[in-house]
């Protein structure tokens, strides 16, 4: 039987990503899970998980009190006096960032975890000490902008990651595409890098939703208004759709107030064709998906795009650019539709082709899409995969 593990999850905050929450819930039944964060409270704590407060950045007094707590708890132990001196130095320098690092290291010292799982590349600076001392098994999750873009446009960041990556015990990549990007920074035969797809709770949608072709083609995108999402290309594609007399409406959820998008919509006279809303609660997003004709992901780069998995599970057809991990989910014309990135004409053409498809053809595709995500993106598989990754790291370290 495999040993019970002490696992530290470090996300910077107590409010970890939904997919990690699901993993924690499940792993918590077998292992000891600690969540470290620069927070003092959380509305809905996950049962059996221990939350360790590292002090809050916004409240300096709270940060100071937490550091003081760590110092006095260890004052009579080995290294206690040294910690006390370090603490005084940080206070004299008003170094709140230093206090945060101090609290993180002290918390780990108390827990003595088997695995420290870092959720974001941007949190690596906190782990420099433990990585340099090789004190714990560190697992790093690789996703999003921080692996897709930053190291390839910021030389300093690239050098930093190339220096730290070999010291990390194991990696979690959210897609094969991300794994490839990771290998550009550090590749070695002994590198542990496991692709673990995010898992989805299919019980919320026991089967694909009812779908009918609507009079007005309802296009939907969901996501923050960052340039990486490629909404500017999609808005230009909408201009093309309008020119071609396609009856459509495009809704972007979560991008309200973005000046660039508002400007483009006005400039291209698309005010009646495009609506931008605030971010919405998950339930409302799902309802919108049920009422839409096509989800569009015009992104320039993505790890995997959970919104695509969700749409496929619900039964909403997806059109995406060939942006990283999405091609692992979608086979063009079989489980969805793919177009090249940065190509408004291709987006517009594919939407028009989709509009001409028969309902039978769309339904066949929707069922296949659901089968695909059920197979690769279920919670059980995700949880087991994480457990396997942790044990691999223990074994090889």
């Amino acid at each position: 039987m495999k040993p019970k593990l002490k696992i530290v999850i470090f996300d910077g905050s107590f409010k970890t990503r939904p997919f990690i929450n699901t993993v924690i819930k499940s792993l918590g039944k077998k292992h000891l899970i600690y969540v470290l964060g620069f927070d003092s409270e959380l509305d809905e704590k996950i049962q059996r998980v221990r939350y360790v407060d590292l002090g809050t950045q916004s409240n300096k007094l709270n940060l100071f009190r937490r550091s003081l707590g760590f110092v006095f708890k260890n004052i009579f132990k080995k290294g206690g006096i040294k910690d006390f001196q370090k603490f005084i130095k940080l206070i004299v320098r008003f170094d709140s960032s230093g206090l945060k690092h101090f609290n993180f290291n002290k918390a780990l010292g108390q827990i003595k975890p088997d695995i420290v799982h870092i959720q974001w590349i941007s949190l690596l600076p906190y782990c420099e000490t433990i990585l340099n001392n090789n004190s714990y098994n560190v697992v790093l999750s690789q996703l999003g902008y921080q692996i897709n873009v930053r190291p390839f446009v910021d030389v300093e960041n690239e050098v930093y990651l190339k220096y730290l990556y070999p010291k990390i015990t194991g990696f979690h990549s959210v897609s094969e595409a991300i794994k490839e990007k990771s290998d550009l920074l550090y590749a070695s035969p002994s590198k542990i890098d496991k692709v673990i797809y995010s898992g989805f709770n299919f019980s919320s949608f026991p089967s694909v939703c009812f779908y009918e072709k609507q009079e007005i083609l309802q296009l939907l995108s969901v996501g923050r208004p960052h340039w990486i999402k490629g909404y500017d290309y999609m808005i230009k594609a909408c201009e093309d759709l309008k020119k071609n007399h396609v009856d459509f409406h495009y809704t972007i959820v979560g991008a309200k107030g973005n000046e660039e998008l508002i400007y483009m919509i006005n400039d291209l006279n698309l005010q009646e064709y495009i609506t931008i809303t605030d971010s919405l609660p998950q339930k409302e997003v799902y309802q919108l998906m049920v009422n839409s004709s096509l989800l569009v992901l015009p992104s320039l780069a993505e790890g995997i795009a959970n919104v695509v998995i969700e749409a496929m599970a619900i039964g909403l057809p997806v059109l995406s650019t060939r942006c990283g991990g999405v091609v692992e989910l979608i086979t063009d014309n079989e489980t969805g539709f793919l177009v090249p990135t940065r190509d408004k004409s291709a987006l517009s053409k594919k939407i028009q082709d989709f509009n001409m498809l028969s309902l039978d053809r769309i339904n066949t595709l929707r069922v296949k899409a659901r089968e695909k995500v059920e197979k690769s993106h279920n919670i059980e598989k995700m949880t087991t995969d994480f457990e396997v990754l942790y044990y691999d790291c223990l074994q090889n370290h």
Partner: protein
Amino acid sequence: MTIGLVIPSTPSYSETFFNSKIKGLQGHGFKVVVFTQTVNPNFNLCEVVRSPKVKGNKLLVLVHTVNVFFKLLLHLKRVIRYYRLLKDNGFSLKTIIKRIYLNSHILINDLDWLHFGFATQAIGSEYVAKAIGAKMAISFRGFDINVYPLKHPNCYLNVWKNVDKVHSISRYLVEEAYNIGLEKLVPVSIITPAVDERIINKFVGNQYSKDYGSLSICTVARLHWIKDLTTALETIKILKNTLPHVVYHIIGDGHTKERERYLFMVNQLALEENVIFHWKLSHNDTLELVSRSDIYLQTSLNEGFCNAVLEAQALGRLCIVSDVGGLKENLVNGKTGWLVKSQQPQLFAKKIVEVIELSEKDKKTISQNAINRVQKNFLLSRQNSKFVQFYTTQE
């Protein structure tokens, strides 16, 4: 005559527009006071009054508030007049108190004109000029009219009610302002940005590359979406197919997010060999680089006027720019440069190829036309006298 100029920060040495305006006015016997949030330590052209503190150390803000309170006591009559103006226009007591504090640095000064250097800066200070018995002027820049009101409809309602005179950098911005409520009765003066002939003359006369293989294209733009560098980079991508050695220089910087946006685009389009980001350069270095380019390219989604395009013409460059906003006044299509439909990389690339294939004689003609037009209409000395007229005459 005393002019109070409200601007977000004191102009740095290289910002010709405000520096020259201030010097010009002083030269004609005006007193200029700058009201601002940020003071550049090297700025010493005129008196500077800093706006009251609202952020930072709570104790300092408190001390500052007490100080403001006592200063205002000495100008109680104005404060009461300001209070009444705001009350009569339906503002709540809370807003009135907030505005008295935020505008206290202007309220205690004697001015003939209160001039907001950007229209957006007048929001929240619309009744101050009236309260101190001064006239209110505003300047239109691209962002004020092209972008801000889209996100904040009716943001200028109170500005329109109170403004005595408008300065705009182009006719286009005035027409747009009429569409969002500026009354046509309000006097308007169009004073475009201008070039400093003494600086420009140092760089005029550089030759174009004869070898198209080494075509050099240049843009001066901060890295902001309104400049639409996406279209510019896509244009370069298209050109690269026939001119593999084309070099595109971008002079200008922006926030990290925007820097990464265009660096990533260069990476994705494999243009690393063709695109050089120079980030922020001194005015001198910028002019030097522009003057050595074959083509000056400006693909902006919109522009109030665009000083960079004017300078490129002054340097005799072959300018290819979007047919939007104030650019249509800045450049005469086919005579001093070329206008191309915005957001159309195919059309920009086609125009660039057409231009480089022109005969040397035709290039020279366009270049000389551009220089002549700038020298005739857009010199700093002319701008200065226009500003003097702005405050002294009814138009």
